[in-house]
């Protein structure tokens, strides 16, 4: 049968078999080359983010005294800063140890921000802290991706290359969010995560405030015969504070005589959900690693205080960049939701604690 084939057909057959041989023996290698080239492209983008974030940090910090060369040296030393998580093989007391380490880490970042910008005001130092935090995250991401890429290339391991490639869209989304946050922190714009403090700012309505815990302020005012205790992070610098500590302190000071706690926070939206969507629920609406949430839950449980949550949906990138119009409008609506909840669930002369959780950059009290 093959004798009947012409020269052109032999050529087609040769190409066909050549293709089959290449794909059989080198298919996976070709696939890996495609993945490696995509990871390298993403890595170049990450490198660009790191360089630009450092440039942004230098341009912000040099306004406050130190010269550019000194800032560069200090920044290069500081950017590899890390916190080692506490041992959890014996989980007893792990939250206390975690809180201790997080506090010390925050103190160290604050010290660095003060060294880099000695002439900056308190709120400007807070914003520089956030900028440094974003630089550390971006640098870490870049190093991790580079590590797995080089490890995969060195060991010719499809597993290493594949796992980075599969997670690449998520990693890049995360990196873009942190890179975009630099603009908001350097210029002092409120961010999406600040919607909780913004709602409490509206509720405070100019009432006098005092600092109740580290970087957390409280105010008291009357509303329809009820006493409102309002808690938010201290602004307009980029602070999150220790709201759990503040709530615990207030509950203990009042000996548990609080009729309801309402917590307001930004929450990650699911794909398909609208930005600024409001949802109500039960529990401590706070996205900390654990210690603050534990204090709130434990204090509420101790005295049997109902713990209500109001969340405002937004994406990760919206949470760390300049507040979107939809979120700012949602904040006004949340005020009405909170007022309605208070009127429906408490009687006159009740005491209600309302806490706005989130970063207070660009939002005072």
């Amino acid at each position, binding site marked *: 049968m093959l004798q009947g084939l012409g020269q052109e057909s032999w050529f087609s057959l040769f190409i066909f078999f050549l293709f089959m041989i290449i794909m059989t023996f080198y298919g996976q290698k070709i696939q890996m080359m495609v993945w490696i080239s995509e990871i390298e492209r993403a890595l170049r983008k990450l490198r660009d983010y790191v360089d630009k974030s450092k440039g942004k940090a230098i341009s912000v910090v040099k306004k406050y005294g130190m010269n550019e060369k000194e800032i560069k040296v200090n920044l290069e030393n500081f950017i590899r800063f890390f916190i080692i998580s506490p041992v959890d093989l014996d989980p007893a007391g792990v939250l206390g140890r975690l809180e201790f380490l997080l506090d010390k880490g925050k103190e160290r970042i604050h010290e660095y921000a003060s060294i880099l910008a000695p002439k900056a005001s308190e709120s400007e130092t807070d914003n520089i802290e956030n900028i440094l935090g974003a630089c550390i995250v971006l640098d870490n991401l870049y190093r991790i991706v580079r590590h797995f890429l080089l490890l995969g290339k060195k060991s010719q391991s499809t597993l290493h290359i594949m796992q980075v490639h599969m997670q690449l869209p998520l990693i890049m989304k995360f990196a873009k969010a942190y890179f975009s946050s630099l603009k908001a922190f350097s210029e002092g714009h409120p961010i999406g995560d600040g919607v909780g403090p913004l709602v409490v700012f509206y509720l405070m309505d100019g009432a006098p405030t005092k600092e109740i815990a580290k970087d957390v302020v409280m105010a008291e005012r009357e509303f329809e015969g009820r006493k409102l205790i309002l808690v938010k992070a201290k602004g307009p610098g980029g602070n999150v504070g220790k709201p759990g500590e503040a709530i615990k302190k207030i509950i203990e000071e009042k000996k548990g005589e609080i009729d309801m706690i309402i917590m307001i926070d930004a929450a990650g939206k699911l794909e398909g959900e609208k930005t600024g969507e409001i949802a109500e629920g039960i529990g401590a609406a706070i996205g900390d690693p654990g210690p603050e949430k534990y204090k709130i839950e434990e204090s509420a449980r101790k005295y049997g205080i109902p713990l209500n949550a109001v969340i405002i949906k937004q994406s990760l990138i919206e949470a760390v960049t300049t507040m979107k*119009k939809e979120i700012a409008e949602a904040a006004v609506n949340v005020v009405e939701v909170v007022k309605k909840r208070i009127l429906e669930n408490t009687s006159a002369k009740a005491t209600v604690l309302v806490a706005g959780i989130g970063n207070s950059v660009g939002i005072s009290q």
Partner: protein
Amino acid sequence: MLFPLLNDLTLQFLLTILLILSIIAFLIFQLSTYFKKKPQKEVVITQMKCKPCNYEEKRNFQQGDYVGKKTGKCPECGGEMIIYSIYSELVKGKPKPYVKT
């Protein structure tokens, strides 16, 4: 039967056309992502409000603005104007400076 089919010039012609079409489709897809619609520009707006009379003003964000900052007297009632909200919105084309609304 595969081999007699391979002899058929019409089939080879069809396969060549299919290959060319695939390459063209791939190029169009690549070009469409390259020339995709440019994103809208983002502007940051500062909204000021007078508490007694609810008079509102909007302008572009200026360095040093923050929510709760006192910005001066209200042109309507002489009350105190404060920054009520700062937010970003997307605008088509070149962003224009925001003025009183």
